[in-house]
């Protein structure tokens, strides 16, 4: 991307995130993504505009949503000639969508685009189990009614039990929280530190709402105007009362310092500086570079959610930057323990030497620069929608401060990590 054209982040729009089985229970991924996209179109007057492309995804997806993003575009006020496609990289989907759009802009293949993502854990796809599926598919292939009857007669009650998507890694059978509890223990992440991070997340998100930071980043949806998970009055003391849910006896991870299941959608508008000028839009920040890493959490002994710890140093090296060369940090708070373990890994001479092959640790960051407008612990984390939330709010925050550099780090299922740098030229 260094050699390509500048990629500008021009704005974003999302709907408030709702808790699972809450106000968005009956909204589909397409409903929510449409709401977010329509809000974006309205805000930036993109009605009838043919954009270069729209890229989005959803982690929990119905089979009918095979063309979710294109269907969303067709239902939106964008020109129907705007192409679209779906992508998926678990919790990294939203940021990876932005990278995909940014890369095409940088290469000169498109001048503008929207990246986004939606996820619902309420309107989740429920599948028939494999045995029933086989019978049903066979039924479909069978021609004679007698044969069909024979097939139906084979059905057993056990085959009717549906398959509900589970929040677990297929190769380990362990939930993401279970994996992170191992990481928390390995890195000695104390309960108090996790609760402090969670409290700060709520404090920062509430503060951002109060000063109107999200006014031009959000469209109210189904009566919700703020993220439903936000507890503005959350404190370390209150969080300390919660029982651990992961890590067994002596566990440190609670419902308070882990992200809840949630529903929501987000979008980000990207374009060239010229396209922005033609449309009378401010450049909030430039999308400088991105990196994706993966770790072997199955056999390699690395933590499931520690891939960003590998991705960031690679990105820094490519850009000739240090970890301290940033004014803002947006580290996705899947779990407070994940964030703290990542920060500790970068501070640890042993990890940096043995795993990253560096003579010096990356060092620590100023915590006052971390997730200054709230993180996933407060806003919640509809998987594919998190990337868009972070890119848009970081770009705006850089624009507000009149310049600076921001680092985005998002961990994802399957031992993956997506990271990116946004920059706002200025003072």
């Amino acid at each position, binding site marked *: 991307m260094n050699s390509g054209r500048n990629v500008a982040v021009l704005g974003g729009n999302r709907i408030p995130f709702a808790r699972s089985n809450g106000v968005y229970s009956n909204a589909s991924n397409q409903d929510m993504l449409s709401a977010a996209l329509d809000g974006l179109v309205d805000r930036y007057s993109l009605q009838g505009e043919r954009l270069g492309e729209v890229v989005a995804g959803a982690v929990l997806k119905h089979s009918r949503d095979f063309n979710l993003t294109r269907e969303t575009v067709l239902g939106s006020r964008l020109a129907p000639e705007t192409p679209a496609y779906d992508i998926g990289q678990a919790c990294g989907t939203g940021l990876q969508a932005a990278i995909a759009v940014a890369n095409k802009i940088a290469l000169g293949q498109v001048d503008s685009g929207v990246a986004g993502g939606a996820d619902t854990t309420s309107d989740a796809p429920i599948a028939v189990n494999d045995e029933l599926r086989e019978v049903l598919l066979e039924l479909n292939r069978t021609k004679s009614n007698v044969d069909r009857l024979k097939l139906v007669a084979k059905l057993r009650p056990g085959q009717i039990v549906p398959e509900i998507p589970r929040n677990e890694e297929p190769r380990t059978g362990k939930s993401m929280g279970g994996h992170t509890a191992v990481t928390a223990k390995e890195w000695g992440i*104390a309960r108090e530190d996790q609760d402090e991070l969670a409290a700060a997340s709520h404090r920062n998100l509430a503060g951002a709402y109060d000063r109107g930071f999200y006014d031009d980043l959000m469209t109210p949806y189904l009566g919700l105007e703020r993220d439903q998970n936000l507890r503005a009055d959350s404190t370390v003391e209150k969080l300390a009362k919660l029982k651990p849910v992961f890590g067994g006896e*002596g566990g440190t991870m609670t419902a308070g310092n882990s992200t809840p299941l949630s529903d929501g959608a987000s979008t980000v508008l990207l374009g060239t500086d010229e396209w922005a000028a033609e449309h009378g839009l401010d450049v909030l920040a430039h999308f400088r570079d991105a990196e994706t890493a993966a770790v072997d959490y199955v056999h390699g002994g690395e933590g499931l959610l520690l891939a960003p710890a590998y991705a960031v140093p690679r990105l820094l090296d490519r850009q000739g930057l240090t970890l301290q060369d940033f004014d803002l940090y947006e580290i996705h708070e899947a779990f407070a323990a994940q964030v703290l373990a990542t920060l*500790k890994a970068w501070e*640890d001479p042993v990890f940096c030497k043995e795993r990253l092959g560096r003579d010096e640790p990356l060092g620590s960051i100023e915590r006052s620069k971390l997730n200054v407008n709230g993180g996933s612990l407060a806003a919640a984390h509809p998987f594919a929608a998190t990337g868009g939330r972070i890119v848009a709010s970081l770009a705006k925050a850089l624009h507000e401060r009149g310049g600076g550099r921001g680092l985005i780090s998002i961990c994802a299922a399957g031992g993956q990590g997506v990271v990116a740098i946004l920059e706002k030229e200025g003072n």
Partner: protein
Amino acid sequence: MADLYTQIVNAPVANTLATTVGLPVPTPLERHSPGDPVLDGRALVGAAPGGRLGGPTVTVLAGAGVPAATESTEELRRAAADAGLDAALWNADAPSGDKFKALVFDASGITTTEKLAELHRFFHAAIRTVGRCGRVVVLGTPPADTSSPGEHTAQRALEGFTRSLGKEMRGGGTVQLVYVEQGAEGQLDSTLRFLLSPKSAYVSGQVVRIGQAGEPPTIDWDQPLEGKVALVTGASRGIGAAIAEVLARDGAHVVGLDIPALGDDLRTVTSELGGSALEVDVTDPDAPRTIADHLAAEHGGVDVVVHNAGVTRDKTIAGMDEGRWRQVIDINLSSQERIDNQLLAAETLNDGARIVTVSSMSGIAGNNGQTNYATSKAGVIGMVDSMAPVFATAGATINAVAPGFIETQMTAAMPVPVREAGRRMSSLSQGGLPVDVAEAIAWFASPASTGLNGNTVRVCGQNLLGA
């Protein structure tokens, strides 16, 4: 081999019974076999902030191939990274639940009595992670080597902690305090390896002092005495034979010495070890010259001298004739002085020579009927104190081991109540073996033990007597 009582109470039914009625259940102690790792498990390294010994500790562990976890201090993590030790992290506020075979705590950062709370912080969380035959080593600064009265007081306080923790250990665990002088941080290797390994099975509650010395030589840790000549007095049986065996295992050519009357036994021991026998009565006025001449002529000098020969002639002082007194003092103490002086005068000691002498728990605690013996053995401690600076100028060291209840022919002949009391009145609730004394001597004898001079270390399972 565990004694009969230990074997019985470790059998399933008897174990339940013994536990129920509150009898001690001694854990069969793990002991070293050639080829064994230094530590059969992981070590956890903790530190009070501002310490200077955590880094050197981590370096030693890395060199000894001991897998480790450390607390998250800059010093420890830097040292681990520099040493290429892929050490896990451990946090007392959020312990991982992992088990450890050994804990090493750098207490040198405890410069005030308030900071003694660091001991509680670490061990309160860490002690439960220690498994069977576990090892605890606390590192500090010699009180006299501190820079303020408060630091002196705090460092002296460590001794009460380690001695008490030794008594709280279960399952054959041991606890030691190692005082390391300023500037002697590079001398930790041989001592940490010994105290962490099963070689120190019967050493607990001890205080070891490591002083400044020249750079320790690079050695083969499996054969530290390769090419060295070691004189062992009283080598024909018991502890002496065990010493000869262990020094030979470590690569030394052993010159076994004993009285002519025990010549057959002596030759049996030395021939099996590929050593040589020297039949001399150490009380003979010519003995020092005979020994020095033999070592010079046959071996070109000597590297290790172990003064093990000793006798008991027990009587209460009122009933003791002068002969019993004189004989014990002469064999156990005066003859050692004469031999050492001759070896010094004749320059028979090779560079980096090691004198190791055998004191006794009786010399520390005193014992009914052993005024002569205890005097001689306390004198051995005095000799170590007085001669350490003398040997230092000759580039040599002198240290002593003080055995407690060691299972030998002598103790086997004791009346049952006395023997049982001797065995159980220690933190490890059992007697030691001759090899335990021999391993401690081999530790002092190692060429790497440059920083050890003037120490008397008990091999007594932290016996209650004199502690």
